[in-house]
C-alpha cells in the first residue's frame, strides 16, 4: 500500500488542502497522515500535532521574521524568510512514508534546513505550491515583479530597496538547496502557477506538475436554492450576491472592486431586491457602510456544511482576487451550482469557462464585474465544476506523479 505523509502549518491553512487530500487518499486506498504545527479542532488518529517546543520555535521565528522584514510596503502581502523550524525527519510517520508532501509549511514550522533534512531521507519530496513562495526569494505573490525568473534582489516589497537583501539571500539558499537534490518534485494546483514555476530560475529545470486541489463533491453540492435561502432567513425573492474569504478586508482579495461594482449596479438600478451575503472575518460595520444594498454578514464560517448553505443560497459568487493561486472559494461555489465572477488571474480561468459556468472579468475592471453579475443573474447561469476537477481525475494525477517519481528515483 502506498503511504504518504503531508506536512502543513495547520489543518485549516492553505484551504485545508492537506486534510481534503488526505480524505480523498484514504477513500482511494492510499494511506496518509498529516503532521501539523498548529493544533486546531480537527482531531483524528491520522493527524499529529507537534508539541509545545515546536510551537515556541514557531513563535520565535515569527517574531524574528517580522522584525527583520519590518520595512515592508503595506499591501504588498506576505514575505517569508524562515530562520527557525522544527526537524521532523525522525518522526515515525515520515520514516514510514513513501512520499512526503510539503504543503504550506511556513510561519515557523519548517525552515530550509528542516526541509533539507527531509530531502536527505532520499524519498520523493513533493512540494505542493499553495502560493509562489517555493519559487521566489521570499514573497508569496510577486504581483507584477518578474525577478524570480532571473534571480531575486532589491525586492520591491521593501520600502528601501537594497542590494543583497533578504530576497537575494533566500533565493541563493533555495537555489543551492534545490540544485543539490534530485528528489524534489513540484506540484502546482493552477496552470498559472505551473507556468510561473516553469519560468522561475529556481525550478525551471525541476519536474513540475499541474494537479488541482481536491474538493469533496459529496459535501459541496447543489441543494434546493429556495430552501437554502429559507434556512439562512433570506427572502427567496432576493437576488443574492455573495462574497467570502478568510479575511474579507485583505486587499489581495479585491473587495474594493466588488464594492465599486455594487455601486455601479445600484446606480444603474439593474436589480430591485439585492442582498449582499458576506462570510469571513473583517470589519463589518465599515464594509456595511460602503454597500448600497441590504447586507447580511455570516461571520467567519469554519464548517464546510455552513459554507455549503451560503454558496447554495447565493445566486452568484464574486471572487475579485487580484492575485490568487487556485482559490478554494471558486471551486466550492461551482461545486454547489453557483456561478462565479472573477478576474482572469492566477488559477481562476482554469475553473471558470467564460459565460458558461461563470464570468471572467477584465482585470481590475469594476464595470466588468458589474456586467458579470448582471450576466450571471439575467441568464440564470448555473455553476458547475469542470470534469477535470472531479476527485477521481485528481487522484489519478497524484498516482501518475508517484509513477513518474519512481522512474526518476531509479535513474
Amino acid at each position, binding site marked *: 500500500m502506498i503511504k504518504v505523509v503531508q506536512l502543513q502549518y495547520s489543518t485549516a491553512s492553505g484551504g485545508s488542502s492537506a486534510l481534503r487530500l488526505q480524505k480523498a487518499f484514504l477513500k482511494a486506498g492510499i494511506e496518509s497522515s498529516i503532521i501539523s504545527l498548529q493544533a486546531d*479542532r480537527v482531531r483524528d488518529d491520522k493527524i499529529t500535532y507537534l508539541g509545545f517546543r515546536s510551537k515556541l520555535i514557531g513563535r520565535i521565528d515569527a517574531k524574528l521574521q517580522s522584525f527583520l522584514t519590518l520595512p515592508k510596503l503595506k499591501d504588498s502581502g506576505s514575505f517569508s524568510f524562515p530562520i527557525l523550524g522544527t526537524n521532523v525527519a525522525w518522526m515515525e510517520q515520515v520514516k514510514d512514508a513513501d512520499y512526503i508532501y510539503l504543503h504550506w509549511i511556513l510561519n515557523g514550522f519548517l525552515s530550509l534546513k528542516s526541509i533539507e533534512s527531509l530531502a536527505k531521507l532520499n524519498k520523493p519530496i513533493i512540494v505542493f505550491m499553495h502560493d509562489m513562495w517555493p519559487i521566489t526569494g521570499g514573497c508569496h505573490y510577486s504581483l507584477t515583479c518578474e525577478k524570480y525568473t532571473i534571480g531575486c534582489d532589491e525586492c520591491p516589497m521593501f520600502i528601501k530597496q537594497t542590494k543583497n537583501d533578504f530576497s537575494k539571500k533566500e533565493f541563493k539558499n533555495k537555489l543551492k538547496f534545490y540544485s543539490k537534490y534530485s528528489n524534489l518534485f513540484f506540484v502546482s494546483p493552477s496552470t498559472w502557477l505551473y507556468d510561473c514555476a516553469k519560468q522561475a530560475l529556481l525550478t525551471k529545470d525541476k519536474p513540475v506538475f499541474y494537479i488541482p486541489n481536491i474538493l469533496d463533491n459529496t459535501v459541496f453540492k447543489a441543494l434546493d436554492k429556495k430552501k437554502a435561502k*429559507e*434556512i439562512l*432567513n433570506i427572502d427567496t425573492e432576493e437576488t443574492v450576491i455573495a462574497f467570502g474569504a478568510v479575511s474579507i478586508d485583505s486587499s489581495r482579495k479585491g473587495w474594493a472592486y466588488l464594492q465599486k461594482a455594487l455601486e455601479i449596479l445600484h446606480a444603474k438600478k439593474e436589480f430591485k431586491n439585492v442582498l449582499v451575503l458576506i462570510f469571513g472575518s473583517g470589519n463589518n*460595520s465599515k464594509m456595511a457602510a460602503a454597500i448600497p444594498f441590504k447586507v447580511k454578514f455570516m461571520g467567519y464560517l469554519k464548517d464546510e*456544511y455552513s459554507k455549503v*448553505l451560503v454558496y447554495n443560497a447565493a445566486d452568484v459568487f464574486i471572487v475579485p482576487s487580484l492575485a490568487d493561486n487556485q482559490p478554494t472559494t471558486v471551486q466550492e461555489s461551482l461545486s454547489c451550482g453557483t456561478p462565479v465572477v472573477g478576474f482572469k488571474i492566477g488559477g481562476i480561468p482554469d475553473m471558470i469557462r467564460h459565460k458558461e459556468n461563470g464570468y471572467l472579468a477584465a482585470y481590475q475592471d469594476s464595470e466588468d464585474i458589474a456586467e458579470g453579475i448582471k450576466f450571471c443573474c439575467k441568464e440564470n447561469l448555473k455553476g458547475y465544476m469542470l470534469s477535470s476537477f472531479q476527485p477521481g481525475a485528481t487522484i489519478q494525477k497524484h498516482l501518475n506523479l508517484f509513477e513518474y517519481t519512481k522512474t526518476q528515483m531509479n535513474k
Partner: protein
Amino acid sequence: MNNNDKVIRVAQLQYSTESGGSAALRLQNAFLKDGIDSWIISLISDDVAGIDKTVYLGKRAGLVAKIDGRLQSYITKSKIKEFGLFSYPLLGTNVANLEEIKQADYIYIHWALNGFLNLNGIKKLTRLNKPIIIFLHDMWAITGGCHYSFTCEKYKSGCYNCQMFETTKKNDLSKKGFDKKLKLYSKFKNLYFVAPSKWLYDCAKQSFLTKDKPVFYIPNLLDTSIFKHFDKSTAKLALNIGVDEKVIAFGAVSIESPYKGWAYLQKALEILKDDPDYSNLTVLIFGSGYNKQIADAIPFKTNFLGYLSDKYSTSLVYNAADVFIAPSVVEAFGYVIMESLYCGTPVVAFDVGGIPDMIKHKENGYIAKYKDANDVSEGIKFCFQHNIKGVISSEFDPSITVQRHLKLFDYIKSLKS
C-alpha cells in the same frame, strides 16, 4: 430627570466567547437587539472574529492564565477524575480598570475560571459598587471548588474533606475555597446570582454560600432564527443521508468526560441493535472529530461530522436527526437540548439538572430513568414509534428571557432606592 430613557449598559465577562455554551455572546446579541448596550470581555480570543463589541485581553492575561492552570493542576493533583473539574483559582487578571467595565451599569460574570478571574479579581469588580450578576453555568460559585457536587451535599453546610480528592484532609482546598467565597459574599451586598435551571436555582437556595443572597432563575437563550425547524429532507440530503433512514444524533465528547454519560448511550445502542426494527439506524455524531473508541463501540452505520463550530451547521445536524440523545449525568442547563428542541427534534435524556425544565416526558422527548441505559433505548423507540416532535415551551422565548433580565435590573434598582 427621567432615567428610563438612558440606555442600559452591561459588561459580560467570560473565559472565551465559546465557553459556557457561548452564553455571553448569545445573551449579548439578544440584549443588543433589545436596545440594551452590551460588551463582552473575554480572556481567550477564539476565532469567532468579526464580533463587534468584544474585548479580548492581551498576552499578559493569557500568560497569567496559563501559569494559573499549571499551578492549579499541581495543587489538585490528587483529584479523582470521575468527579470532573475542581477550580481553586490562584492567579487572575484585574479588569476593574477597563473602560467597558467602568461604563457598565451591570456586570455579568459568566464562566470566568481557568485563569481569567480569581476571587480577588471578583472582589475588585465588586468594589466598584455596581451590581455584579454571577451567572451560574455550573455549581462552582456555590461550592468549595467542584463544578458539580454529584451526590455530595456538603456545600449546603460548608465544604471540607472533599470527596474529589484521594487524600482526606479536613482543612483541604475545598474548605479554603469555601471560606474565601463566604468571606467575599458576606462582605458585599451587590452580588446577585442567576441560575439558568430550576435545579441549579434550588441548589443555590440551599447552598450555605448563597442561601441568603438574591438568587434568580433565568434560562439561557439562543438565536431562534438560526436554530429553527426546516425541511428534514433538505437537511438529510445536505449530509448525504437517505430520506428514509432513521437517524439518531448526539454530540460526541471525550469518552472520559465524567459529565456527559457516553457509556449509557453506548449501552443503549447495544440494546437497540438486537431490535430488528432499529437494525438499520444511522448514527450522526458531531463533536471533537473521529474517535476510534467511539466508532468501534457503535454497532450501527455511523457518520462522524467532526467538530462543528458554526451554528448553521449544528442546526443542520439537529434538523437531519429524528431523535437526539443527550445522556448527561449532570447538566446545569443543557444547550444541546434547547438547540435540538428548537430545531423540531425530540430529545432523550436523563432526569437531571436543567433537563426536565425543557423536556416534557413523552411530549417533546423522553426523560429516561437516571443512568438506566435500557430506558434510554426505550426512549429512542418511543420517539420513533409515536413520531414525537421537538417543541419547546414559549417560556423560553428570547424576548421573555430578556424581560426576565430587565426585571432583575428593576429589582436591583428598587433595592438601591
